[in-house]
Every structure is written in C-alpha cells, then in structure tokens.
C-alpha cells in the first residue's frame, strides 16, 4: 500500500519497523517465590507490537482489526503520543508523536471507548468551553463547529444536562463532539461504538463518515463490530500477536484468507442430504447452506442445478465476521503457509533485574 514519497508532502501516517515491548514482573505463587522475588526480580518481556509498518494517506479511513491483545490499542497509543515506541519510526502529519508537540496535538485526536474528558457533574457545554480554551480556538469558529456537530449528532438539549445523567450512548456522542471540536486532521478511534445499541452505532458511524468527507480527515479505527468496519473502511489492516497479517482492501480479506464460498440451496420438494456436494453448515426450513472451495463453487452449483429440483440457489462469500474469526483462529500470515503465529507469538524472555 505504500507509495513513493514526493518532496514536501508525505502520507498522513507513516509507520516503519515500529515495536513496543513491555517488561512485566512475574512471580510464582507461594511464600518461597515471594521471598525469592525480594532478591531476584524476574520480568517477562511482552512484545505487544513487533516490527509493523504501513502508510495511510490523507482522507483515508482504515480499519485496524485484531483480537484482544493483538496490539491494536498499543499501536494507536504510540501514534497518538501516549506511549514511547521501543524502536522504529512513526510519523503523523510529519510529527514524531512521542514528542507530543502542541502543533501535533492540535491536529489529531484519539477517542477511546472508556475515555472521559468531560466534567462528570457539569453539562457538556461547560466541558466544551474548557476544550476551547485548552486548544486556544477562535471563539466564533469554535461556536460554529460546536453547533454543527451538535446538530449532526442530534444532541439537542442533551448538552445542557450534567454528563452523569446521560446514557452511555449519549455520553459517547458528546465525548466524540468534545474530541473533534478542534477539527483534527487525524482521528484515532479505539472502539468508538463499544457497548452501544445498533441505532447509536449507526449514528456514530454516519457522523464519522460525514466528518471524514467534510474535512478530508484521516481515520484509523479499531472496532469489534464488523458493521463499523464494513460501513466505513475500504482498507483494513489486520494485526495479530503484534504483527501485521494483512494490509489491503476489506474485500480481499475473504479471497486471501478464506478460500471458500457458501452456496445456499432451497429445493422445490422437501429436504435432501447434500453432504456429497460440500460441507453442510446449516439446514433450516428447507434451505441448506453448503461450504465449498472457492474454485469448485461454479462446478458444484452446476451439479446441484443438474441433479436436483432447485427452487433457489445463491453463491456468496462467507460473512466477513467468519473470515476474520478464521484469520485470528489460525494466526496465519498467508493461507497454507507455515503457521506464522509460531513466529509472531509474544516472546516470553525471562530476565533477572
């Protein structure tokens, strides 16, 4: 996905050879181990992010996918300047994030599901005023942006209620407004829809898409809800055990990692045993769903139509959730390759300190 650099310009986000290692104290249970740890402290080295690299262009929305503990949030925290990388290079809008320069912080934001930048006991409008002063925003421009976002997210009178009286979804919406009042050019969104109902998720997705279009903002998004990713991201980066498994179009993911298709068949009369045609995934109210290899799908479909009285037949890619699940479960860098997870697994190096 990388492209050659041109003088005076660069991708919004550039990452090369980025690593983050944590040293975690380890101690066995029991009194003996407790005394032993007094004189010889053992730590375990956890490579949370292990030599990753990618570039993201201005205006792109990229989904950052991976199971819990894969290294997504650690990466976002390094890119937002919260964490110092152990090694490697990260540039966001030309800034080294770990330097946390004011000019950088004014151009980016990070929204975390559990972040609370709002004053709990006060209406959100008071917190917005504080944000205006902290970011040194021009009052007229600030008010215009604030009112625009309040309207886009249909917040209405909610901004006049103490934050503690808002529901989780309402709170998330005002959090997002607060995080974007300075109109950042780069957004790191870590599970922005976590715990929200479907309607609220959709509202926030629409807002992110509108913001991206309106301000040509770059968005790197993590979410466990594939609906978020499918609605917003053409490109996804899949990370597992701290290493990147895939960086490309979302649609490619199925082709690359799941060499199967699902064929749904409804027969005109009754139900038949179709196991001779492929793996039967489900059989429900006369409709049988088969999993077959991608290459064999046309031939299996032809045979089904030829052999049986078919009322309806569909050929589909497997749901993206299933593909992702298979990628994570296998930990493969490439289908058919030697298990990449064995190489990518967090190392457990015992050190004495």
């Amino acid at each position, binding site marked *: 996905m990388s492209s050659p650099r041109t003088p005076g*310009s660069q991708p919004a986000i550039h990452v090369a050879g980025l690593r983050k290692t944590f040293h975690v104290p380890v101690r066995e249970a029991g009194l003996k181990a407790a005394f032993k740890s007094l004189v010889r402290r053992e730590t375990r080295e956890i490579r949370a992010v292990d030599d990753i690299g990618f570039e993201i262009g*201005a205006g*792109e929305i990229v989904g950052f996918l991976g199971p819990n503990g894969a290294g997504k949030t650690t990466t976002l925290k390094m890119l937002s300047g*919260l964490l110092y990388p152990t090694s490697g290079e990260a540039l966001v*809008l030309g800034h080294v994030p770990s330097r946390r320069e004011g000019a950088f912080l004014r151009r980016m934001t990070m929204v975390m599901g559990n972040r609370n930048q709002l004053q709990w006991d006060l209406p959100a409008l*008071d917190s917005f005023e504080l944000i*205006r002063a902290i970011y*040194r*925003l021009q009052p007229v421009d600030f008010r215009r942006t604030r009112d625009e976002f309040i309207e886009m997210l249909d917040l209405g009178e909610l901004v006049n209620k103490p934050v503690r009286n808002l529901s989780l979804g309402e709170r998330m919406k005002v959090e997002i407004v607060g995080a974007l009042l300075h109109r950042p050019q780069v957004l790191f969104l870590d599970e922005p829809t976590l715990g929200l109902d479907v309607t609220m998720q959709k509202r926030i997705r629409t807002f992110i898409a509108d913001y991206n279009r309106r301000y040509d903002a770059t968005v790197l998004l993590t979410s466990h809800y594939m609906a978020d990713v499918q609605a917003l991201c053409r490109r996804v980066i899949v990370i597992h055990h701290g290493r990147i498994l895939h960086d490309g179009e979302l649609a490619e993911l199925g082709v690359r990692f799941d060499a199967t298709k699902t064929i749904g068949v409804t027969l005109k009369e009754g139900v038949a045993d179709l196991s001779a045609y492929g793996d039967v995934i489900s059989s429900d109210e006369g409709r049988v769903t088969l999993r077959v290899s991608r290459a064999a799908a046309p031939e299996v479909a032809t045979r089904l139509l030829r052999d049986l009285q078919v009322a309806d037949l569909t050929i589909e890619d497997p749901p993206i959730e299933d593909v992702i699940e298979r990628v994570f479960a296998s930990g493969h860098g490439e289908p058919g390759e030697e298990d990449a997870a064995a190489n990518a697994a967090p190392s457990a190096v015992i050190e004495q300190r």
Partner: protein
Amino acid sequence: MTGRVAISSEAEPDRFLPRAGLIRGWLDLYLTMFRIAILNNIHYRVANYFYMIGMVAEPVIYLVVWSTIARQHGGQVGGFTAGQFAAYYIVWTLVRQMNIIFTPYGWEERIRQGGLSAMLLQPLFPIHRDIADLAGWKLVTIVLWLPIAAVLTLLFSPELSVRPIDVAVFAIAIWGAYLVRTMLYWMLGMVSFWTTRVGPIFQLVFAAELLLSGRLVPLSLMPEWAQRLADLLPFKWTFGFPIEALVGHLTEGALLRGLAMQLVWIVIGTIGVRIVWHFAIRHYSAVNG
C-alpha cells in the same frame, strides 16, 4: 494509497488564536479552568464543608496543647503567648487550605488507572490543570473557611496586630506557597512512573515537612540546627513563612526575602518538574486509558 499531506508545523492557524495573543490565551485558559473548578466544587459544597470542619481538628489539637503548655509556663513558651499561639494556628488553617495540592498518592491512581491519558492528548502540560483545578477549589473553600475562622476566634481569642505590608505579603505568600508545594509534590508524585506503591517514600517526605515547615510547631520553637536546616529546604516557605508573614512581626527585609525564597523554589521546582517529566513520561504504559 490516496492523499498526501503537506508538512506543516501549524494546525490551520486561522482556527486557533494567534501566538501574538499568548498572554490573553493563558489568561482565558486559567479563567475558564477556574470557572469550571468553581462550578464543580459548588456542586459539592456540603462535602467541602465537612472536609473543612474535619481539617480544623489538627490545628485545634496543636493549639490546645501549646496553649496549655504556655499557661503552665507562666503565660508563654519561647516568646509565644496563648493568644499568639491562637493567632498562629488560626492563620495555619487558611494556609493549610491554600497549600493543598494534587496529592502524590493521586499519581499512583492516575498512572495505574490511565487517567493521565486524557490529559496527555491535549496540548496543555498537565500541571496547569492541577494548579487551576485546586486554585478554583480554594476560591470556594476560602468562603467556607470564614465562618470557621470566626468560631475559632471566638473560642481562642487570638492576639493579632498586622500592618498593611503584612497583609499584602501574606496574600502573595499563600499563593507562592501553593506553587512551591505543587512543584515539590509533582516531582515526588512522578516517582510513580517508575514504581507503584510509593507510599512509604511519600510518608518520609511528609514527616520531614511536618517537622521542618512550621506545621507541627512554630519553627522559632525548634532547636537552632533545625531552624538552619529548615532555611535550606523548601518546606518552611510553604507553611511557616506565610503564617509568620501575617502574625510574626517580620521586618520588611525578612518579608521580601521570604517572597524571594519562594520564587527561587518555584523556579527550582519548575526546572525539576520539567526534567523529571522528560524521563518519567517514557515509562508511562497508558494502561486502562
């Protein structure tokens, strides 16, 4: 890969206040932070009042003990009469209120719970939030302190005669004390970046402060070596000096020297905070936030 961005050190300057208005920007920021802190604390005025009442217990104990000793020693101890002790410890209650800072224990929680992350994402060095939050809180609690001081005055009959310069220096010194103590305990709190459970270290410093600041006992009642040691440490300028500025009949030279010492410790503290922060923040693991 689609768009590329021009490298710029400024973030669309037209949307931000110009650098020329830097002082106005800081003033606006601090006034807004004060306003938010006052709004937050008015909300908890009852809790604040009970906190204030609880805080008075410590000086009242000192006051009763020293007044009793003074009476048993023919009316005074080390030049302090019972009425002067009363004046010292009643002013003590205000100074104590003024020099409450973000506790080093708060750093443990801030780091362990990840509360620092939200502050780090904003273009403002976090110490400003702490200074403004607690300064706003003080503005609320000073109002609550007035009736408590009135009751203590009625109960203990303080002897107090002050000159305008004493009041003026006191008014500056209580804020100077607040800044000295903020810098000192910010540096101490940042030890939490390297290791959790730093309570014993804090306790050691608190003990030194208790003895060498004038908090437990006026410094003039301490042995001479302790007084000389106190002159070299920052604690005296956070407690003893502001109180004595008002009740100690200090000379004009001593008053100005005291303010100068506060300034020196504020500068040392600011440099210290910056240096410790530079190394400490690299250890932040941003867990839970």
